[in-house]
């Protein structure tokens, strides 16, 4: 028995160069056709499907030694899976990492877009579980691909209309479908619809990787991204009644934190970097510790 003695060592950023080229070709195609789901030969990664294998493959294909990487999950740099993915790239690519949105050249994210507007030259990589916005209306890939090809999105509008008829409002709060550059209807990944406006005309390149479903799609910088709605029921984002309890920020997305078992709760920034920056700049929320 000798096989265990010479288990292969790994390439820069884990994937071999042939695989990276295959992924880059898919990314280029995706950028050329904004919002179109490009099939790619997704590889097994050393983390499970569902943990961001698509995003990790996209990041691995675009990252270079000069890059600075930020990884967030739920808007936070210190959630366990964000830490795990950041460590993976520290180990396999040896790149610099940061928690500051402005310092990062690549930001891999799950479920959020940072509050700080992204800059030209930055790449944001989204981890996508189900890339197909029509999937829960039509389970078959053969059908949904046809619907995209024919630009047949009536079903989606019917779904949104039924929401309104039943609930008086559109009952989609995350993974809210958007239309990209007037052509493809796209799933923005399960970010809350609060983040949808940030995608519109963003200066950064937005890349979406779905590993298990083997799809990559993209929104190039300065692309129109419109959330689907109706004239009499225009798209609107979540509003919070209170500002962040730690930094006092308004018009940001907040997490609800349960404080005790008597219904006590507070609302704090989901974007931990944004919150820290603000507190460092002297902003204080109502429940923050007073600066010493």
């Amino acid at each position, binding site marked *: 028995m000798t096989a265990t003695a010479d288990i292969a060592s790994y390439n820069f950023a884990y994937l071999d160069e042939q695989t990276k080229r295959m992924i880059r070709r898919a990314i280029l195609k995706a950028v050329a056709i904004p919002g179109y789901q490009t099939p790619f030969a997704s590889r097994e990664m050393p983390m499970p499907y569902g943990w961001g294998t698509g995003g990790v493959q996209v990041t691995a294909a675009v990252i270079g030694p000069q890059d600075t990487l930020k990884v967030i999950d739920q808007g936070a740099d210190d959630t*366990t899976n964000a830490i795990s993915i950041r460590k993976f790239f520290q180990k396999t690519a040896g790149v610099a990492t940061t928690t500051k949105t402005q310092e990062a050249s690549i930001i891999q994210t799950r479920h959020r877009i940072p509050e700080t507007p992204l800059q030209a030259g930055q790449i944001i990589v989204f981890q996508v579980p189900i890339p197909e916005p029509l999937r829960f209306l039509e389970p078959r890939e053969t059908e949904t691909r046809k619907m995209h090809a024919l630009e047949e999105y009536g079903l989606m509008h019917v779904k949104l209309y039924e929401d309104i008829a039943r609930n008086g409002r559109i009952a989609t709060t995350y993974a809210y479908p958007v239309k990209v550059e007037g052509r493809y209807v796209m799933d923005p990944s399960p970010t809350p619809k609060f983040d949808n406006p940030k995608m519109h005309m963003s200066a950064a390149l937005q890349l979406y990787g779905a590993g298990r479903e083997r799809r990559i799609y993209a929104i190039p910088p300065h692309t129109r991204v419109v959330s689907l709605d109706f004239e009499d029921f225009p798209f609107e984002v979540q509003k919070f009644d209170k500002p962040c309890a730690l930094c006092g920020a308004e018009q940001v997305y907040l997490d609800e934190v349960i404080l005790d078992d008597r219904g006590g709760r507070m609302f*704090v920034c989901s974007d931990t970097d944004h919150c820290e920056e603000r507190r460092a700049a002297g902003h204080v929320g109502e429940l923050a510790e007073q600066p010493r």
Partner: protein
Amino acid sequence: MYVAVKGGEAAIDNAHRLLADRRRGDRCVPALTLEQIAGQLALAVDRVMAEGSLYDRELAALAVKQARGDLIEAIFLVRAYRTTLPRFGYSEPVDTGAMVIERRISATYKDLPGGQVLGPTFDYTHRLLDPELAGDGPVASGQRREAEAGRVRRVSEILAGEGLIEEDGAPPEDGAIGDITRTPLEFPMDRQSRLQSLARGDEGYLLGLAYSTQRGYGRNHPFVGEIRIGRVDVEIEVPELGFCVPIGRVQLTECQMVNQFKGSAKAPPQFTRGYGLVFGQSERKAMSMALVDRALRAAEFGEDVVAPAQDEEFVISHCDNVQSTGFVEHLKLPHYVDFQAELDLVRRMRADFDKRAGGSQDHKEAPE
């Protein structure tokens, strides 16, 4: 006072340390060796090789040990390693007719050339726990027999002589065999790509689907034409040499299922086939695969596609246990951002509802 949750990094490190500790168990008990796992838990190792799609007993044994006996986790470890390996080339099709047979049975003939060879099977054991095995008593070695000289004809070849069964499918005209690990899946699939997916598909999932065809959800009237288990040579063509050389031997389980077919406008009445081929010794998997393969050929024979097992996109999209377990288990990752959005929506809808209920306060539930 709320303090932002930090320390995820230390938590992960500590979790890994505890996992390693639990994996090892009582230090007074000697650690399992890979030889023990490969030798004495051979069928677990076989399953990891088959669904991990990597024929290497030692690495599979290592994976079983590292995964604490969780076979899907072990399969995942092997897959994640396999995907990093360079491709030197593709082997020639293996010739299972030339298999060195350890077990070979047919349910369609009482006796046949090459004979019925039971081999190491559980089939006729009485499932009574054996207290002897708690110790390490002596075990007699197996009875040896003379190997058959030359090829042992496959039952499908015997039936084909009469023209009563469909032929082996021809390889694609351009000679290009698909590779599901290198090209994205697209539907509809060709049969060879489908068989590749099924060969690494989850045993339990395929077993359930196969069973469903027997209970009437896409019934296909199967007979076990033949099951054979044994070793075959793997050959590759070396371009510099211009001929094929054997590079090793693998143990395979092959199942040829023979299915009744009444014929259609295009095809005469004849038997059709379902095919299963699996690394190592796994009849359950090979038979299930053969039943599901045949079920998935429904459209090819003009049969109505009415049952789950006949639905290609359904069967193939969900047969990979590494994908399935990943996506099911990812639900335990934090989703609080989306949950917050849903919470907000439900609160607003609830407020609307209560308003519509016309302020009948006595009906109001507790939540504020």
